[in-house]
């Protein structure tokens, strides 16, 4: 699969082929501009490949009709470096919002949201606003929002990029716990500490090409 951005002189991802099994925990590492973030965007159908296919959950999404994309995205949870929480909503409301806008009832939200907030370790802080929470706690809210719908895949784009090392480790433990429920976790990072500690599959990308794919790898 190849992706070239308009006006770019060389492809961002050049003839990359990778397959991730259900239940895997995979790190994509590489320097800035190596093309690792494009992988997340391709899996979300935010961008399309110029050549080749992107198959997620058994569906080829590179040729998917645009009206089918929303329901496809419901099977994927997403966490970003900048959390992307709504500042005028509490932790509870932020998570409930993700359910409400895909048509779940308030009753479902009342049952599921406290559960998932408890899971990410935010029990008792449901009614805090994002600015009343630390960075790590905000990221936990984001993970709760990504996971509340029980997605098959959790995409994490530099989730620890804005956090200190100790908080990062806590977030990683959380992602590990989610992975153990059977959810595939795909994480893009350049945090060598974390990669070395987790000892999971590592795929290294450089200049748009895969230079290493190691089962229990380190940052190298």
């Amino acid at each position: 699969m190849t992706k070239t951005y308009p006006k770019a002189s060389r492809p961002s991802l050049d003839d990359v082929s990778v397959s991730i099994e259900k239940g895997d925990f995979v790190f994509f590492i590489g320097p800035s501009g190596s093309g690792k973030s494009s992988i997340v965007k391709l899996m979300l159908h935010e961008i399309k490949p110029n050549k080749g296919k992107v198959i997620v959950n058994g569906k080829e999404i590179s040729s998917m009709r645009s009206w089918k994309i929303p329901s496809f995205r419901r099977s994927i949870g997403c966490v970003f470096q900048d959390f992307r929480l709504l500042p005028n909503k509490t932790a509870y409301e932020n998570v409930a919002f993700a359910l409400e806008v895909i048509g779940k009832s308030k009753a479902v939200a009342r049952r599921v949201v406290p559960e998932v907030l408890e899971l990410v370790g935010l029990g008792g802080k449901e009614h805090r606003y994002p600015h009343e929470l630390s960075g790590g706690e905000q990221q936990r809210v984001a993970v709760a929002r990504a996971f509340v719908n029980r997605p098959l895949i959790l995409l994490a784009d530099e989730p620890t990029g804005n956090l200190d090392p100790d908080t990062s480790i806590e977030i990683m433990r959380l992602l590990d716990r989610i992975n153990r429920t059977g959810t595939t976790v795909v994480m893009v990072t350049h945090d060598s500490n974390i990669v070395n500690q987790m000892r999971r599959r590592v795929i290294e990308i450089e200049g748009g090409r895969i230079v290493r794919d190691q089962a229990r790898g380190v940052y190298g």
Partner: protein
Amino acid sequence: MRAKYVLAEMLVGLWRNVTMTIAMIITMIVSLSMLGASLLMYMQVDEMKGHYYEQVEVSIYLEKSIQDAERSDIKSKLDSDPLVKNVLWETKEMAYENFKAQFRDAPDLVNAIGADELPESFRVALHDPKKFDQINATYAGLPGVDTVVDQQKLLQKIFDILGSIQNLSLVVAGFMGLAALLLVANTIQVAAYSKRREVAVMKLVGASNWFIQAPFVLEAVFAALLGSILAWVMLVVGKVVLIDGKLAALTDLLLPVSWGNVNLMLPILAGIGSVVSAVTAWVTLRFYIRV
């Protein structure tokens, strides 16, 4: 639950840019009431054409030196003509009486005309007033005929004036309508921008497109409905104050505007307004909120 959410979001959106919402509604009122006025005028001119053309006549004026044989020849020709509905022979005396009645306010004029100076004529009503040319061709050259005059030509001038007023209000409605459309597009962009975080999250978690777009489209439709109702109120006020009030004296000539037609404007304006704004809002969002 979903409908409640969408409606609540719509009201929040309208209130957040309340000045823009008011500007949007005002331009809609002006453009829709101009559109309504010109539609009413169009219907009115149509009705008046029907009304007057039924009464309109062709006058065949006869020469003073006409012979009895020539007159009865013309008369029998008219009676057997399939284009003619009915014929009235206006003698010199009748013409003078009509003239006196018509100009009773100007006795000098009446006194200046002798009783036998006015020409006698046939007043001919046609089945189809537009076939004047054929009548003119048949009768103008007959011996004893002076001129053939079509009253429709006189009415045509009045209708031309009404037509140009109608065109003018259509042009104004068009320009104001364009301004209203641009304001709708702008308002929707501002609304979408002020909710960009929510929209980004909704797209991320897989909210359907209609669910993301519906509150914005409904904002535009709501403004259009409010605008069209107020535009209709303007038309009602216009009818009561202007047509039935100040210009009441003219309604002998112009025919009154019926309530039925005025009321018909409400669904027409509401329909045109809301469909056009919904489409504008939707197209704006297509460019603004890409999936």
